[in-house]
């Protein structure tokens, strides 16, 4: 189950299925393409609308841009406060991804390299957190943050994000460290390296791929997270990007819409993720599926 070597197999398997192409099979193919093109069209619509005037978006939604209307981006960035949101989110993504992995990596290594009931129980204890819905932890934490004066602060949100990303990161990295060969540690020991040094200068660099994946997945989570931000951030200058967009969207429903600027705001949030997928989509999907295949 663990060794996925798909390339030669899929070729042969598709050779088999080519022999029985039924009308139903064609219909399914058309259906899948419809969904694929719908998603691509959604992205194209958002990005193209960001360059159009609001009048053109309403009058001819599918027509190509009527000019470049770069003022949409300026309006969104400045008047819509997207610039502030972008900065806050970027700061949170970087710090939370680093901190989560820095805390999870030693724990995962220790848990992966040992067995016994206490270690197994600890792993299960962390995995338990994956099953606890956010809404159950958020109420006491709100009261706690209120008491500590951390409501509407980025440091409060930072702590929250590290904590909610810990269970998955520990789970992912425990699996990853478990898959690294232990011969290297034995060799390091023979060379007189202490276990602590072995971890920092041998195992951690070896695990770079897994650590990067964990940071990317955490970063994507933080970039798009809305529920906790909505509960813990109440002032505009601490809004994260999703909050800024939500707020801008709702303002416009009330005060008449500047659709061009709204889609510019949407594009500001979406395009970094599109770029990320284009750049390291494989790494992201491997990280996501490796958890499920363990």
């Amino acid at each position, binding site marked *: 189950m663990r060794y996925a070597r798909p390339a030669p197999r899929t070729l042969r398997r598709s050779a088999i299925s080519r022999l029985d192409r039924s009308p139903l099979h064609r219909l*399914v193919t058309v259906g899948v393409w419809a969904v694929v093109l719908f998603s691509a069209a959604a992205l194209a619509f*958002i990005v193209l609308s960001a360059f159009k005037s609001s009048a053109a978006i309403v009058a001819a939604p599918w027509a190509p841009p009527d000019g470049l209307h770069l003022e949409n981006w300026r309006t969104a960035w400045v008047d819509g406060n997207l610039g502030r949101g972008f900065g806050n989110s970027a700061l949170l993504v970087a710090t939370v991804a680093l901190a989560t992995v820095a805390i999870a990596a*030693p724990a995962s290594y220790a848990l992966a390299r040992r067995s016994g009931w206490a270690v197994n129980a600890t792993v299960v204890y962390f995995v338990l957190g994956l099953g606890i819905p956010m809404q159950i932890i958020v109420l006491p934490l709100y009261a706690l943050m209120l008491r500590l004066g951390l409501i509407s602060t980025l440091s409060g949100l930072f702590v929250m994000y590290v904590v909610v990303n810990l269970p998955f990161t520990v789970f992912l990295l425990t699996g990853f460290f478990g898959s690294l060969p232990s011969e290297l540690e034995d060799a390091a020991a*023979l060379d007189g390296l202490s276990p602590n040094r072995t971890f920092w200068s041998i195992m951690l660099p070896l695990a770079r791929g897994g650590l990067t994946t964990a940071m990317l997945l955490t970063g994507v989570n933080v970039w798009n997270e809305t529920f906790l931000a909505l509960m813990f951030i109440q002032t505009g200058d601490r809004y994260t990007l999703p909050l800024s967009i939500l707020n801008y969207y709702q303002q416009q429903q009330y005060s008449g819409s500047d659709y061009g600027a709204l889609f510019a705001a949407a594009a500001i*949030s979406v395009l970094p993720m*599109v770029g990320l997928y284009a750049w390291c989509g494989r790494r992201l999907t491997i990280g996501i599926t490796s958890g499920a295949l363990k």
Partner: protein
Amino acid sequence: MATSAFARKRRQLTIPYVIGALVLYTALFIAPSAYSVYASLTDWNGIDSPRWVGLRNYVTLWSDPVFQRSILNTATITLGVGVTLFVLSFVVILVIRELRFARFVRGALFLPHLVSTIVLAIFWGALFRYDGLVNGLLDVLGVGPVTWMGPDSAFALVLLGLVWIHLGYYVTILLAGVDAIPAHFYEAAFLDGAGPWQRFRHVTLPLAWDVVGVAAILWTISSVKIFEFILAFSGGQGALPHVNQWNTALFVYGKTLGGTAAAFTFGYAAAGAVVTLAFVAVLVIVVRRLMRRESIQF
């Protein structure tokens, strides 16, 4: 000898290595969960100290039409959207390997999982507004505009949107499981005269059963956290969506900080959250029971 001394020293490292994550996670994840269970038995506004009321919150929940609707909607998402997702995922997997432009296809399917749900909700709104894209298309076809986003019909659109957003993610996970099945099973089945459906029923499904189980649990857990798509799609300026569209996540937000006049009934909201947790726990146990039996090692 060196290794055993090394092993002993390594054992001594376990606690220092684990302690940071363990303390943080216990203090800010597990302890709040436990506190919520306690808070659900109290009258609490989130600011003053809670006052014990026993099971009163649960009794009120039981006959609260807003909560009944919320839990019904949550179940509709978990079960209805869930079954649709898994059926569609397998349908997609049936053909996805043979499609041309494979990278583009996978990317386009997976993309909604990576981008902000708020943005997807804005796009969904642009489609189904009264003066939106869908009615524009209908107008060209000579059909009158339809009110898509009424308090009752909007939830159906939410469900449809959720299928769209999550499809690529579950296709990716299930595909990884299906790809791990050795091809000779398919060849043998083919030579025995099994058609596509029989190969799916007797080879793919049983051999990918473990992954289906894990994916089903993942969906169950994440489906009750769905929140911002509903909020952004159906909410207004500072206002919450109509209660007909609440799920339990919106219920918790609506009964504490959400809306133009926040309710601050933290104890009551905590009871709603505990019921949600129980819902998840029961479903996860049921899924594990259902899935355990037929798993096949290969």
